[in-house]
Structures are given as structure tokens and as C-alpha cells.
């Protein structure tokens, strides 16, 4: 339980994808509209007291400062307080975390968390696939480094150690595309085969295009309130029971080991402790599969399986729909897409729907505890949030 109790009473998102027709403001407004539609008219938007806005790349892509006003202006939310959160790819979950803490502190009763990212306005070689936020340094952003490289380094190590094979990584892509097929909000809704993944163009060897999440436009929103008021807004509240966040060093070359990430392990440990559960209690998880190898790492970092056993655990069918702990029923970042600032919020939307039994064809039967795992950078930061059916 977070403080005196925080609940999720609404969730909404836009279909993720290549949304050339939609501006940043359009995505934001569409997520807001989807959120309000999902609340069955029991939330008076004017009663929302504050908001947290997660956008990672505003300045880089829009060449414009993203502030609280970037949400307040299109929504007509001003003069209410809006905090903008940027914490690399973990910003969405961190925004949820900070909003929850404000509610738990008793400052607000009802708050909005909205994540939005407009990424596809750049060509591939200008996107995060090819570049990272560059700084003026030589060493910590070596020439030629890319986002896939941040996780590709782990893949090279894990393959060299014989822990995983190229095919194991491909199977993550196959599984998540299979799940995303069932999600109307997913970007890539076609199934793929292991052969297709292996044969797709190389991006960052050993990773191919189908090992990488697509550059995505999207937005997602959740409403949080004090748990004791949740019944006022919905008949099916979901309690946000825990949030853990941890950091690590900034740069690849200051990692003592590859093939394991410290921040996710510590964030998960903190969240499990706060929730009073262990990894075996989780019924459904939304994992940060920005690249296929990242999901294999996550199985081990989160304790879903033993260190070194991710490939076997995947092969057992446990993380697939119908398995013992379905991971990324939404399709994950690989299939649903990864609009950076929106991703953590969208993960929580999926968990919200799963715990309420509203996930349609991809429903995990009887799920009562859900986890989101949201990694920033090369494991520089990770936020793990846990929710329980109310």
C-alpha cells in the first residue's frame, strides 16, 4: 500500500502507431477523451486537482520546451498545477509514481497522469533507433552508439556466455506480436515467425528490425484517487499498491557486468516489499521489451525465473497468454509500440484493464495482481509499479 492508499479509477489511451495525421496536442486530447469515456461519466473533469505530464523528447523532436502548460493549454486544464516528468523511457511510470505520492500525502484527492510522445515526425536515421540524446562528451556517448546498442551489448554478452541464443530472442518477438494481434490499440498487429525475425534487416547485430520496438506516436492516461474515495468514481477500482524506483550509473562502460541490470532488480525488490508480495504472486506483467533481449533480461532481473534461466522460462510457455505469468499481453513495446513518455502510463492502462477483466481477447483469466516494468536508458533508471484488484 502506498501511504494511506491510492487507487486507479480510470484509464484511456489512443491507438499507438505511425500517426502522421495527429499532432502532439491531438494525441494528448484523444487520450484524455478516451479516459473520460472509460469512466462512465462518474468523474467530473473539473474536480481533477492536478496533473503529471510525461514526455521524454519534447525539446529534441519538437524543438520546443514541453512544460505543464503543454497539457494545461489543449485541455483547458489551467490554472491547475501540472508537473512535467522526464526520466528517459521510465518517465511514464515515474509520473504515475509521483502523482500517487502526492495523493498518498493527502495533498490531492483526484489527479491525472498523462504520457504523450510524438516520435514518428523524424526519419529512421534521426530517430532513437539511430541516435540517443547526444551530449558534448566523447566517451560516454561513443561515436556510433544507438539505442539498440544499449541492450544489444547485453545480448552479445548473454550469447557469448551461452545463456541465450539468437532464436530465443526471436521467440520474444513472436510471442509479443502474437499478443499484440489481440490488442486494438497495438501498432504492429501482424504475427511474425522466428524465421521472419531472423531474416529481417540487421539493425544492431545480433538484433534485427523485428527485435526492436517501432518508433511510435501515442498517448495514454490514468486517473488516480485516494482509495477511500474510489467507490465514488467507479465500481471496479484497482489499487496501486506499490512503486519502486532505482538508478544505476549513466554509462555503458561503467557497468561492472553485462547480462544483468541492477536498477530493475532493486526497483522490483522495493516494489515487492511495499506490496508485501513476491514475484510468484504476480498474475500479469507489462515488461519493458524495447528490444527482445530486454524482456529476457527482465524475467531474470524481476525474479520471474532464476538468473540464466530466461530462455528456458520463455520456452516453457510461462510468459505467454495462457501461461503461468503472462508477460506483455498488450503486445508490449515490440508490438504495441513505444511512445517513450506514454509507455509507462500505457503499461498501467493494460494492467488496469486486465485486473478489471476488461482486456477482451487477451484477458488473463482471474488476474488480481499486475506489475509494470519500465526501464530508462541502458538500465540507468527503472520504475516498477504494482497494482491489485480492489
Amino acid at each position, binding site marked *: 500500500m502506498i501511504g494511506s492508499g491510492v487507487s486507479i479509477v480510470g484509464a484511456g489511451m489512443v491507438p499507438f502507431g505511425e500517426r502522421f495525421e495527429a499532432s502532439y496536442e491531438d494525441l494528448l486530447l484523444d487520450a484524455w477523451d478516451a479516459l473520460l469515456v472509460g469512466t462512465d461519466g462518474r468523474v467530473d473533469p473539473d474536480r481533477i486537482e492536478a496533473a503529471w505530464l510525461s514526455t521524454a523528447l519534447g525539446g*529534441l523532436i519538437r*524543438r520546443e520546451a514541453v512544460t505543464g502548460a503543454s497539457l494545461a493549454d489543449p485541455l483547458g486544464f489551467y490554472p491547475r498545477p501540472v508537473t512535467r516528468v522526464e526520466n528517459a523511457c521510465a518517465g511514464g511510470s515515474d509520473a504515475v509514481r509521483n502523482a500517487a505520492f502526492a495523493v498518498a500525502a493527502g495533498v490531492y484527492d483526484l489527479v491525472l497522469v498523462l504520457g504523450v510522445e510524438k516520435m514518428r515526425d523524424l526519419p*529512421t*536515421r*534521426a530517430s532513437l*533507433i*539511430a*541516435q540517443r540524446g*547526444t*551530449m*558534448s*562528451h*566523447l*566517451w*560516454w*556517448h*561513443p*561515436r*556510433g*552508439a*544507438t539505442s*539498440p*546498442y544499449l541492450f*544489444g*551489448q*547485453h*545480448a*552479445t*554478452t548473454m550469447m*557469448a556466455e551461452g545463456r541465450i541464443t539468437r532464436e530465443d530472442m526471436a521467440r520474444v518477438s513472436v510471442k509479443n506480436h502474437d499478443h499484440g494481434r489481440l490488442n486494438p490499440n497495438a501498432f504492429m498487429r501482424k504475427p511474425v515467425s522466428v524465421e521472419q525475425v531472423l531474416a529481417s*534487416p*540487421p*539493425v*544492431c*547485430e*545480433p*538484433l534485427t528490425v523485428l527485435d526492436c520496438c517501432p518508433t511510435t506516436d501515442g498517448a495514454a492516461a490514468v486517473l488516480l484517487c485516494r482509495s477511500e474515495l474510489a467507490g465514488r468514481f467507479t465500481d471496479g477500482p484497482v489499487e496501486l499498491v506499490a512503486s519502486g524506483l532505482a538508478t544505476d*550509473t549513466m*554509462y*555503458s*562502460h*561503467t*557497468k*561492472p557486468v*553485462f547480462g544483468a541490470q541492477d536498477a530493475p532488480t532493486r526497483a522490483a525488490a522495493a516494489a515487492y516489499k511495499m506490496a508485501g508480495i513476491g514475484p510468484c504472486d504476480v498474475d500479469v506483467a507489462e515488461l519493458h521489451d524495447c528490444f527482445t533481449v530486454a524482456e529476457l533480461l527482465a524475467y531474470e532481473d524481476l525474479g520471474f525465473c532464476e538468473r540464466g534461466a530466461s530462455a528456458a522460462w520463455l520456452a516453457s510457455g510461462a510468459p505467454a497468454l495462457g501461461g503461468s505469468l503472462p508477460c506483455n499481453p498488450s503486445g508490449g513495446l515490440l508490438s504495441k509500440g513505444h511512445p517513450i513518455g506514454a509507455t509507462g502510463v500505457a503499461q498501467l492502462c493494460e494492467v488496469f484493464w486486465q485486473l478489471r477483466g476488461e482486456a477482451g481477447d487477451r484477458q488473463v483469466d482471474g488476474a488480481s495482481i499486475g506489475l509494470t516494468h519500465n526501464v530508462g536508458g541502458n538500465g540507468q533508471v527503472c520504475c516498477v509499479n504494482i497494482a491489485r484488484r480492489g
Partner: protein
Amino acid sequence: MTGAGIEAIATYVPPGRLSVAELRRHWPGVAGPGGVSTVAVAGFDEDVVTMAVEACDGALAAGGVGTAAVDLLVLATCSSPYAEHSAAAEVARALGLATDAALVDLAGSTVSGVTGLVVAADAVRSGRCRRALVVASERRTGRPGTAVEALGAGAAAALVSADGPVAIGRTASTRFGVPTRWRPDGERALHHYDDARYELMNQVVPAVTGVLADLREDRHAFLAVGPLDVRSRSLLVRAVDPEAEGSSLDVEGTGDLGAAGPLFALAGAVGGEVGTAGVCMAVEPGSGAVGFRVVLGGTIPVRHSRPAEIPVDYVGYLQRFGAVEGPVPPSPIVPHAATPGALRDDGEGSLTGSRCTACGSLNVPPRRRCIDCGGTSHVPERAPRTGTVVTYNVQHVVAVHPEPSPVAVGVVRLTGEGGARGGQISAMVCDSDLELLHVGSPVELVYRRLSADDGLVKYGWKVRVVPEAGDAATTQGAAQGDARS
């Protein structure tokens, strides 16, 4: 077959003015432009498209015609902002023309303004279009210090329909002469053969005379001809038709307005006596001349847009054509090797790190707090120049140039004791056969160009794979990436 005529004409001349006296101050003794004391200069934010929009707006307003009525737009110019891409589409977008209006771009010749009127008249006569907007727009310059350096700027537009009172009649053209003015591909300044008398008397006059003969126009009230400066036009008219009033037809003293020149001349001529007839013609040495008979069947509205003049000095003139470039504002995104950040990172170039006196970790680059133990006591130490690959990836989709992709990037553990988190660097791999690269590959650090910002080179360290026993033969001569292409 219906007729075709002009319903309205408008011109636009940008406010900038370069005086011929100012030009002479820098280039004494250079002839031209003749007969004018100033030439118009387009502003930093003006080009063929924006000036065309000004002229078209004027023509539509003068003619009382809405944009929905225009179903053909013809843009004629020698100085489009694009070598490839329709400038007419940009003009149409700005005017708000219907998306199904036809667009014609006529470029690369100073006769294209007259050609545009002929094309529009033919389209109207054939019923292919109901109302055409023809605009000629120019902002040209010539090579500094030459007679054609200051060429003027401006745009003129005409609305053409079946009922236009200024009838576009018989058309004729003649191919004559060899080029005396040309602008090579990729250059912005006009070149010319510097002999004005030869050009006028042996190129222009025969071409014009040929068209007049074809038109069987031995008597006409006016000869609206371009592109010529005022003095050349006067000399021409005297040569081909001493009785015509051509030299008085200028709407003002302009320089050589290229494709727009004949339209400016026509704008000055259409106010003549109703019932009279003349000729509108364009001439270009090396291609010849094209012209048509004009019958003034009634008066038409003519609108001239002339913002208050702004004097432009010679440096300002050169700046407007990019011949002299001012400083480019620094980008807030792109790193720059001259920024204070580069000063702070200066140690990186010399590969100097910090050796922690508490735990012995080698931090590269140097850190105030040790990456391994947090200690704050350390001494500078140059990093070893060899190491082994910890992990790496071969990057195929990567935003570097001029190195060809793929490129390998990895983490390298430096030789010797360095700590757990210390003692490593990240670097690009160069000059190596990527097929031989593996976890544990021995490498050496080499100093290379990394990038250049604004021409300032940023140097730094890459790593080169050291051949191991057994793979020397394959490494021989293998350039990076070749093995995978």
C-alpha cells in the same frame, strides 16, 4: 474556338534598392545596368515564391476574382528557390487555389514569362481552362564586378480568360543566336559574354525583327519587350521600329527583370488608347524570341504594389545572395567542439583519467567521485593504450558519416588494474575486420577524427582490433565493413 485575353495585371517590386552609384563605388568602370539609377533587391525573407504571391494577390484583387475561379497557375522564372520541386505548388498553396487547379512551372529561360502567357491563352482558347493566372517572378544576380551583377527583382501577374479585354492574338517565335548569358548548374550568379553592343545588335535585334516579321507587324503602337534594361530597350526599339513608343512604356526604371521583364513592360502598355494594337515579346540570346500580338479591346485594372523603399548597401546585396555569409546561430541540440563543454572535457583528448588513491580504480574520463568507491582523492593518469573487448554490437542503422555503415561500437576493458566499474571505455571500432571481432578481442586505442562541427574537427579515440594468431591472413587489407557487404 473562343478568344483569350488579359483581364487584370499586377506587379510587385520589393522594397530593397541598390543604387548604381553604390555599385560603382566598389566596381568603378563597370557598365550596366543601363538607364537606371537603382535596382530592386529582394529581402532576406523574399524569394520567387513570395514575390509571386504578392503579384498574384494583386492581380486577383484588381480583377475582382476569387481564388476558386482560377483553374490554371503558370509560374515563370529563372531563379526558383528549387532546382527540383514545383515552386508553382508553393504559390498555389499560399494563395489557397483549388487543389485541382493545374500547375505549370516554366523555368530556366528569360522568355518563359511570355511563353506562360501564350500557354495560358492556348489553354483558355481550347477550353481546357476557364481562367489562368500567369505570374513571372525573379530575384537574379550576376557575378560580382560584372555588368550583369545587379539584375533587379520583382514579379508580375496577369489573369487570362476568354473575355479578357486585352486580347492575346497571333503568336510567333524564332530561334536565333548563340548564348551570351548563362547560369551553370549549381551556381547562383549569371555569367555573360561581356560585349553589350554585340549582344544587342547581333543577337537581340535580329531575333526581335524575326518575330515581328512572322507576326506581319510592321505597324504597332507599342513593343513591350524584355528582359532588357532601360537603355538597351530604348536602343532596341529605335533599331527595329523608330516610330514606336517602346521606351516610354516602362512602369518605372527597372533593371533586367528576366522572365518578368516583358510582363512589366506589358503592364505599362495596356493603358494605351483602346483599339490600338502592339506586341509583347521576350528575347534571349541563344534561344531567340517569342512574342504575340496584343489588341487593346478595353481598359483593364492594373495594380502596382510598391512598399516604401529601403536602401541596400553593397555588402547587404552580397549577403542577400549568400555571396557573403554571416555567422550561423549555434544549434541548441548539436554538440559543438568549441563549447565550454568541450573545454571541460579537454582531458579526454589526451586520454587522461583519474586513479583513485583509495581503491585504485582508473576512471576514464576523470571523475570527482570514484566510480567504484566514491573516494574523492585521486591522481591524474594516462589510460593504457590497449585493452580487450567486453561487449560490442555491429550497428547497421546508425547516424554517423562519412564512415560507411555498419560500424561496430563496444565497451573495452583497458589493460591492467582498473576497478570493477572503472578501467573501461566505450569506443567505436575502426580499421578492423568485423568478422574477427569477438568478446575478448584484443584492441589498441587509436586517435581519430570523430566529427566536425562547423568545420571544427572533434578528435578522439577509437579502437582497432589487434590481429590474433590464426587470423592475420584474413585481416590483411580488410577494410571495416567490407567483410559484410
